[in-house]
């Protein structure tokens, strides 16, 4: 289907089902139950899953395929956001021109930065991209204030021209971004029993874009171009000896992943029309690296999983506070309850980044292939067990120790 083989079609279908039914799937607990805080099926969070998923898919095209570790991708996302908000301010509240412009601008930026940075590889490339991103961040904060509005961040205001939207309405409220007449914040709430499912226009726009982005990335992975990028990763020197100039390929990959980042930035601004410089900080670039590695760099589904995983647990963990912990451990005797709460306390709430850091280290150390590799290992374990049971049962314990083989 659509020029994909069976396996990829299956993958695309899984993602499609997940994305389209997310408001139901991520909402497993009735809204009045104690577990309702673990629901992720509200538009704001689901939009974040999807937008960061797009960002990570794009990053994976660069890092997963070519092995070039960029520490400055958040700059493209930030540029994309700024471009989109300017489009809302000047042209129209329709999101299509805004997203188009953010992709184009991010692409141009990526071409410029990539042209310079890709002259080096390895650590130098990482540091060059980091330097460029920090430069953009510092500039956005200081000199470029007329364009970026500095620390406050770029926002809509009532006296923006918005040429295509005609005369500004005299209502005293800011307009919302729209597509085909629907406002992004429009939400249809469906109550079914104790459940409340929220279907938001903004989320579905993001989900459709995610599917397109995912489809495109599958095509890139399976194309001769994708093969070439993998060759760059496995041995660039040998590629050069065979007479192939790798730089056009890596530059193309860099620009494509920059455009994905711009798309994510544009969507982010479409869901919530403001843009700030802190989206470009290098810790934000680190975050997308985390997502890609955690999910599994170089795999198709990995980045989406990683983005969803990090954003979900970020949201849930930051919400857990001591009162909730006390509720959880209430069955324990008082002394043990307090000890348990004290033990868990540093890792939840504001301590979420600590958990994230530890998790990330564990993944890099023990599971370089990320969650996808973890899943494959577990699957492999079961398969191995099955064959062992068919044959000689005694070897089962010795082989299952090393399931990665």
């Amino acid at each position, binding site marked *: 289907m659509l020029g994909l083989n069976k396996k990829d079609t299956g993958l695309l279908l899984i993602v499609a089902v997940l994305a389209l039914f997310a408001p139901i799937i991520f909402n497993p607990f009735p809204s009045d139950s104690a577990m309702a805080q673990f629901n992720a099926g509200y538009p704001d969070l689901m939009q974040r899953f999807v937008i960061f998923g797009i960002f990570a898919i794009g990053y994976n095209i660069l890092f997963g395929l070519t*092995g070039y*570790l960029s520490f400055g991708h958040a700059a493209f996302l930030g540029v994309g956001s700024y471009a989109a908000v300017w489009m809302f301010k000047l042209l129209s509240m329709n999101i299509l021109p805004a997203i188009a412009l953010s992709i184009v601008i991010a692409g141009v930026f990526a071409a410029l930065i990539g042209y*310079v940075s890709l*002259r*080096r*590889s*390895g*650590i*130098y490339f*990482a*540091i*060059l991209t*980091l*330097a*460029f991103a*920090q*430069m953009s961040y*510092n*500039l956005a*904060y*200081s*000199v*470029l204030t007329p364009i970026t509005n500095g620390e406050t961040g770029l926002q809509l205001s009532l006296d923006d021209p918005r040429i295509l939207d005609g005369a500004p309405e005299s209502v005293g409220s800011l307009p919302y971004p729209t597509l085909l007449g629907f406002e992004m914040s429009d939400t249809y709430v469906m109550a079914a029993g104790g459940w409340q499912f929220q279907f938001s226009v903004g989320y579905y726009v993001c989900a459709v874009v995610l599917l397109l982005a995912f489809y495109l990335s599958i095509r890139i992975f399976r194309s001769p171009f994708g093969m070439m990028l993998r060759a760059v990763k496995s041995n660039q020197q040998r590629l050069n000896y065979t007479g192939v100039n790798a730089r056009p390929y890596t530059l193309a990959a860099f620009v494509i992943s920059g455009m994905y980042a711009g798309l994510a930035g544009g969507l982010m601004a479409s869901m919530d029309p403001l843009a700030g410089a802190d989206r470009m900080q*290098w*810790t934000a670039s*680190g975050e997308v*690296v985390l997502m890609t*590695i955690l999910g599994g760099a170089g795999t198709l589904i990995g980045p989406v999983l990683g983005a969803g995983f990090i954003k979900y647990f970020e949201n849930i963990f930051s919400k857990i506070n001591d009162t909730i912990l006390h509720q959880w451990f209430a069955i324990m005797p008082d002394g043990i309850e307090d000890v348990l709460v004290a033990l868990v306390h*540093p890792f939840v709430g504001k*301590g979420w*980044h*600590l958990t*994230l*850091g*530890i998790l*990330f*280290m564990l993944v*890099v*150390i023990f599971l*370089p292939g990320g969650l996808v590799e973890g899943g494959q290992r577990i699957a492999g374990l079961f398969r191995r067990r099955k064959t062992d049971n068919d044959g000689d049962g005694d070897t089962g314990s010795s082989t299952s120790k090393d399931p990665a083989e």
Partner: protein
Amino acid sequence: MDAIILQILNGLDKGSAYALIALGLTLIFGTLGVVNFAHGALFMIGAFCAVTFSKFLSISYTVIDETKTDFLGNPLKVDLTYVEAWFGQSVGGTILDWAVPLSILMAIPVMVIIGFIMERGLIKHFYARPHADQILVTFGLAIVLQEIIKYFYGANPIPTPAPDMFRGSFDFGALLGFDANTIIYPYWRLVYFLFAAVIISAVFAFLRFTTFGMVVRAGMADRETVGLLGIDIDKRFTLMFGIAAAVAGLAGVMYAPINSPNYHMGMDFLVLSFVVVVVGGMGSLPGAVLAGFLLGILESFASMNEVKSILPGIDQIIIYLVAIIILLTRPRGLMGRKGVMEE
């Protein structure tokens, strides 16, 4: 002329910090071949050593002071620190006042131990892995260390004053024969610069004039041959990691009075220090020091109003700009050896 001298002086303290951190980074990279993204966190931990030590010193208990009375004539309760109780008012007071320099005593063993644990426990397993993995795992470690500090000390900067003697500034211009009040310079920054100079010379002397240092330098040049000669080079490199951590920590300790320590100060310095290492030349110790001071001074020149009026915003990006130009025209850096890490 006086303006130029002022800018050079202003650049020195930041330059010293860059040079010290970059020196540690280069030591680690030159010996172990590891790119340590957690080095900024070590700098930050050093600064928090100073905070912790001065908190230790100011642990106090309450006594009833008969000499002081409130308005009703009752004796007043006074907090008395243990240090003052043990050593008497004047000696104890001096110790309290000198908390920051004294915390060096605590910082050295703490940092060496942290460095040792880091190398043996984590980084040892990453020698054979690609540079990208090393960057990623140390980046993760940096986040963890930073969050641990944040958990114990909170997110706000903690003011840590310098000793009384070095507070305030002095008229440096008058010393050199310029008009009075043209070059005003804080004492502590001068102390910081001298301190950095001492540490840097100590590290160089250690590598140059001791047998241990000689072996380490030999190992940096050709690890395999040194190993074939029957020397356990790994053990020495581990110790060098500890020393590099201590250098970063000391840089942090003494920086605490200049900039109140907060949990993300390490990250802020890390990026710049990497740029410094790259400009100086990966693996070149003199290069790291030279580039540190050069970039620090360059940054302070770029923040002059005269320069900013011609090129607005240049002070924010000058270091990165220099790094980009250097990387593209002379990838081995100012003093890097030819052929080392040029790709």
